């Protein structure tokens, strides 16, 4: 088996991997390798041909491929190695990675640090256990996006979309532009789970109805999909009898959530957070296994690629600090906890006395939509460290809290984040 050595191996060449590798390079790391299982860099951005990317990071509006291209161009000017069509199949011990491709076969890489940047996958019809037949014509919105934007084929003509996730909303518009009839979008929750701008630009502008508190309760069609039964749901998300209605369609797209892809993380025995479904990390995006870092959608599903980039730069910088022994551990490790109305917070720990970062960015999601709230950060004695006023909060929009490191005292052991009205 072939063996090679690197300082940092980045697993995944999407937006997270690209930003992490470039930032590690900027931090002076010599030997960096990106392993990408697809045939090109850019990851999912390759199929996201709509605009809206980069408003935060580049202060301009780019398409997905354009956004990726900025990083790929930069990468071309560096000595970062890239292996395409290369799948990492195992990761273990101290710095050992096994990968496979058609040229080198199965090979081993020894590395000082690794950055996980595998992204996420879409939740399926099967995982939701929607009852009924199992015909063709049912796919996730992202798979449909690939067929339409990369392969050049329409999955169907009469389309129902379940779930108001962003990819579903984007595909509602995309398929309408291709001449298909998108008959409507159903969302089981009482609120849209995608970004507000996507609802306006992709549904409202095309007169595509969005029905909240509705779901698909049965699937019909022996060979190709022929129709779905839709129904209203009650507060516990159960179908309300007698609200069922048959809708003829040949295609059902699902946009019902994304799940971080942590098969490799599990092989490496990295501790995962049951809320994010990604690794538990400290503010450096270091996992429970010190030489392994993680960033982007493998860690937590982001709404905006701009945040993926920023987070991955933290991981890239930190992995560089780690291999150069520059991380300065705090006197006490701070654990981050939160109250029930919050879905999750990343990072879950703060471990270091930082000299480079002046603020810590907390990413979080609320469980329920609300208006005019204060998000309060307290110490273990209940003393308010800082707070943030927000006009509206919704689970579909990630919140970013910037907490200056200077506010985190040396003897702090825990910070708790909570939400109050008014």
């Amino acid at each position, binding site marked *: 088996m072939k063996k090679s050595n690197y300082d940092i191996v980045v697993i995944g060449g999407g937006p997270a991997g690209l930003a992490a590798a470039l930032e590690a390079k900027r931090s002076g790391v010599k030997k960096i390798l990106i392993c990408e299982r697809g045939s090109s860099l850019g990851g999912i951005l390759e199929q996201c041909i709509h605009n809206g990317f980069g408003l935060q990071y580049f202060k301009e509006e780019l398409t997905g491929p354009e956004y990726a291209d900025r990083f790929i161009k930069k990468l071309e000017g560096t000595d970062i190695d890239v292996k395409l069509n290369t799948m990492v199949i195992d990761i273990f011990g101290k710095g050992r990675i096994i990968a496979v491709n058609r040229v080198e076969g199965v090979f081993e890489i020894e590395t000082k640090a690794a950055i996980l940047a595998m992204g996420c996958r879409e939740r399926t019809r099967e995982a939701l*256990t929607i009852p009924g037949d199992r015909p063709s014509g049912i796919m996730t919105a992202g798979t449909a996006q690939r067929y339409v934007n990369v392969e050049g084929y329409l*999955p169907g003509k009469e389309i129902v979309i379940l779930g108001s996730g962003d990819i579903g909303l984007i595909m509602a518009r995309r398929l309408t532009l291709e001449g298909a009839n998108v008959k409507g979008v159903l969302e089981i929750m009482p609120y849209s789970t995608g970004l507000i701008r996507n609802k306006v630009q992709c549904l409202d502008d095309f007169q595509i109805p969005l029905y909240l508190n509705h779901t698909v309760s049965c699937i019909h069609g022996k060979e190709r999909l022929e129709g779905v039964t839709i129904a209203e749901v009650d507060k516990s998300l159960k179908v309300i009898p007698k609200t069922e209605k048959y809708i003829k369609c040949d295609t059902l797209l699902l946009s019902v959530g994304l799940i971080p892809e942590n098969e490799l993380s599990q092989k490496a025995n990295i501790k995962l957070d049951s809320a994010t479904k990604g690794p538990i990390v400290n503010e450096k995006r270091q996992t429970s296994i010190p030489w392994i870092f993680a960033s982007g959608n493998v860690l937590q599903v982001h709404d905006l690629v701009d945040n993926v980039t920023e987070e991955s730069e933290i991981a890239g910088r930190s992995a560089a600090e780690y291999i150069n022994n520059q991380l300065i551990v705090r006197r006490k490790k701070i654990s981050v906890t939160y109250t029930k109305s919050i879905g999750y917070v990343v990072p879950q720990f703060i471990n270091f006395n930082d000299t480079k970062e002046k603020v810590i960015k907390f990413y979080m999601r609320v469980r329920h939509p609300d208006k005019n709230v204060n998000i309060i950060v307290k110490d273990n004695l209940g003393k308010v460290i800082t707070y943030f006023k927000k006009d509206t909060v919704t689970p579909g929009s990630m919140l970013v809290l910037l907490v200056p490191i200077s506010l985190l005292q040396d003897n702090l052991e825990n910070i708790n984040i909570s939400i109050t009205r008014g």
Partner: protein
Amino acid sequence: MQTDILIVGGGVIGSAIAYQLAKYNLDITIVEKESDICMGSSKANSSMIHDGYNVDGSTLKGKLVLKANSYFENLCRNLYVPYVKNLGSIFVGFGDNDLKIMKEQINNGEKNGIQGLKIVGKEKLHQMEPNLNPNARFGLYNPNTGTINPFELNRALAENAVLNGVKVLLNTEVQNVIVRDGKVKAVQTNNGLIRTKVVINAAGLYADKIAAMVEKIDFEIKPRRGQYFLYDKKWGNLVKHAIYSAPTKVSKGMIILPTTEGNLLAGSNAESINDKENFATTFDALEGIYNNMIFHLFPMLPRNGEVITTFAGLRAVATGEDFIIDYAKTVKGFINVAGIQSPGLSSSPAIAMMVEGLVRDLHYDLDFTEKGNYRVDRPKPLILRDLPYEERNELIKRNPDYGTIICRCETVSKGEIIDAIHSPIPATNIDAIKRRTRAGMGRCQSGFCGPRVLNILENELNISPLKVTKKGKESYVLAMNNKDLSLQEGRRNYEKIEL
């Protein structure tokens, strides 16, 4: 076209019969109406190999399952079929009534000559199944219960038969059986007439329909639907044996077990229905299975989320409940193998042997001498994820396609998918590839690999991607080229959902 023996149906029974008869110098043809073998009852079942401890030994199905069990080990070794012989089963009891049933079952098992059955107490039970509901009080342990990969068994039997000269005609539906002078002469199919001396009716759910083509019959095949949950491999280690729940008012006792591939399979209910094509799952049945069995036995298992899929199977139940394996009453050369419901999979080798006897006893001019070049095995399917790295490297050196991973969830390479497409019974659609290679059988349910598998099918079969199907017939994955719809003339319907 002409053949000696025509088998109707490429399920596990038709394939087992073909495998059994392929040893001899006979001309054998399987006709299968679907696009692949293993498309009916053989595709969706509990995947268990029963020893028959709880069957009525006086019935035909009881006799056959008891006879068949000892054949599986050799069969699976010869044909490279994943089989866990001594998985063991535990019927879990919560109340005194369960204990009564267990004692009856032990008596029955002893009557059937089964050894090793024993009742285990609470402590031992929870040692054997550490994740089981702590309220479970005792269990009936049977060390002889096994599990098999049913797709692979079906495929292996058929592939071995093909390698020994059996022809398999897919997408070929029997429309009529032609009888002259009280003897079978030919069958009419959608692909032409096939002259034959013998017809073996292993048509599963449609065995009554085929049987009725030659004479008035006194049985009917009624589908009995059972639904299942298949859990993520993450949960594969949770359950150590095949765990039965006690029979209740609503069910006959359901089962949860680790599969040969490391998933967890749980089901099923039993519901008599009329439509032989109704493989749909229903909310009520899934709720019932989850609440009454899964959650009851292993409360940590989720209702959804880490579920790979849910599915329904149809058992082909004949009037009278027993297997019907016999000659047609009024026509010579026609053999019914009907009503093969549970434990059909477990009985398949013995069913095939019994059918061989029936064919011999026709005393037709058939050559039952053994083939000189008979092959006992089949090419071993290459499953790269199971091989040591160095072995994989050798294979990748020879064929780089083995180094291109297409299905990420199950780590299936392009080479394995191409092998399946060009295997003795070619996989020509996405589900057929899934059953052979597991591509698309993982967590993302082909969300990622689906378009890639479609491309491979397009290239290997040299067809338009618009012709690629999920499971044959009209199950096309894609509708048309981009822009074709917006360029269509005339006003189309843009009706929206209105509530």
